[in-house]
């Protein structure tokens, strides 16, 4: 096997080709990576040269984003599961107009869709896991841990899509702070994580450690 050719880029994980909606930067990254194909002196790793176009793009990214949706401060008491379910569904109702607006402005693009469950159905499933951590999986051919992860991602994507209805550049940190710090759904995922970590099922423990709350958001745990 022959060695690879690599281009090291300064962008955060998840954006190997640079910021969104900055085609000139993305093209520059792509052409610099592809140009390495014409070199044979392997193995190769080069640094992406930060052009002035990159710095201008980063300056524009630093414009502030504020959530367009005014949600009530979420409670930390999740023990009353009936109230929890009701309050979560109220949160979804508040988000629905923004979700629809986001889909219209992105010409029909949806971020959720890993399952066919609606946000309300996902809430019922996650709350049922809180009530009984030994429930069986609700997605065919998927163990319970993976099923929880899939529906949690779909619920989070619904929230994220709603939050992005306001057309502004937004960072994952800001969106994460909003979701895990200011929404009941974020609190719900933190609770799901805690239950998985404490479960006797080792695969649920592993999924709890890594799949529900990013490391940068553990400050809300």
């Amino acid at each position, binding site marked *: 096997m*022959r060695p690879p050719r690599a281009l090291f*880029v300064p962008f955060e994980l998840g*954006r190997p*080709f640079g910021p*969104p909606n900055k085609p000139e930067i*993305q093209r520059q990254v792509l052409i610099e990576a*592809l140009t390495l194909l014409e*070199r044979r002196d*392997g193995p190769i790793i080069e640094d992406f040269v930060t052009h002035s176009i990159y710095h201008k793009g980063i300056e524009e990214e630093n414009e502030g984003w504020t959530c367009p949706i005014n949600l009530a401060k979420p409670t930390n008491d999740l023990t009353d599961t009936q109230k929890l379910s009701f309050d979560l569904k109220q949160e979804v109702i508040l988000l629905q107009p923004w979700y629809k607006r986001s889909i219209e402005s992105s010409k029909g693009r949806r971020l959720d869709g890993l399952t066919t469950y609606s946000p309300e159905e996902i809430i019922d499933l996650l709350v049922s896991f809180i009530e009984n951590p030994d429930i069986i999986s609700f997605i065919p051919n998927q163990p319970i841990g993976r099923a929880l992860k899939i529906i949690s991602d779909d619920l989070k994507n619904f929230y994220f899509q709603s939050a992005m209805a306001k057309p502004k550049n937004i960072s*994952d940190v800001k969106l994460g702070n909003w979701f895990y710090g200011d929404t009941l759904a974020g609190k719900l995922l933190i609770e799901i994580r805690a239950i998985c970590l404490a479960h006797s099922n080792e695969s649920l423990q592993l999924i709890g450690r890594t799949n529900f709350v990013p490391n940068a958001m553990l400050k809300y745990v």
Partner: protein
Amino acid sequence: MVYFSEMPEKQRSMIVDQDLPDYKNTPCVEGPSLSKRKISIITTAGLHKKDDEIFTPGVGEYRIIPDDMNIKDLIMSHVSTNFDRTGFFQDLNVMLPVDRLNELQVAGKIGEVAKYHYSFMGATPPMAQEAVSKDLAEVLKADGVNGVVLAGV
């Protein structure tokens, strides 16, 4: 990306201590000039069409992404929560720059865009991916692809 010097020691050791091939000064594969190459993109972002099976953790597998599909119909079932997804939410080209690749073809910088691109899910043990990677390499060669951008997230 992050420099090793910026990583916590445990994370740094986990990456550096991996059992990786030692290429020494082996030259890279030779090929035609870039303007004559057929290029495909392979991402590790766990992307797929909505009606594809979602990725299964620990399993070596990939999904096929036609170059002419509406990439707005792609969704992500990657297991990791620890990389930014807001870029992907706003512009898929941050992970899968098919629009940019086609622009480079129009500009004559590359010879041709491959009919298909591919997605793995990166959070999978490398050895679990070996068999399907070899399989995909043969598929790419049969398609006449002679240049690949492997885009990790």
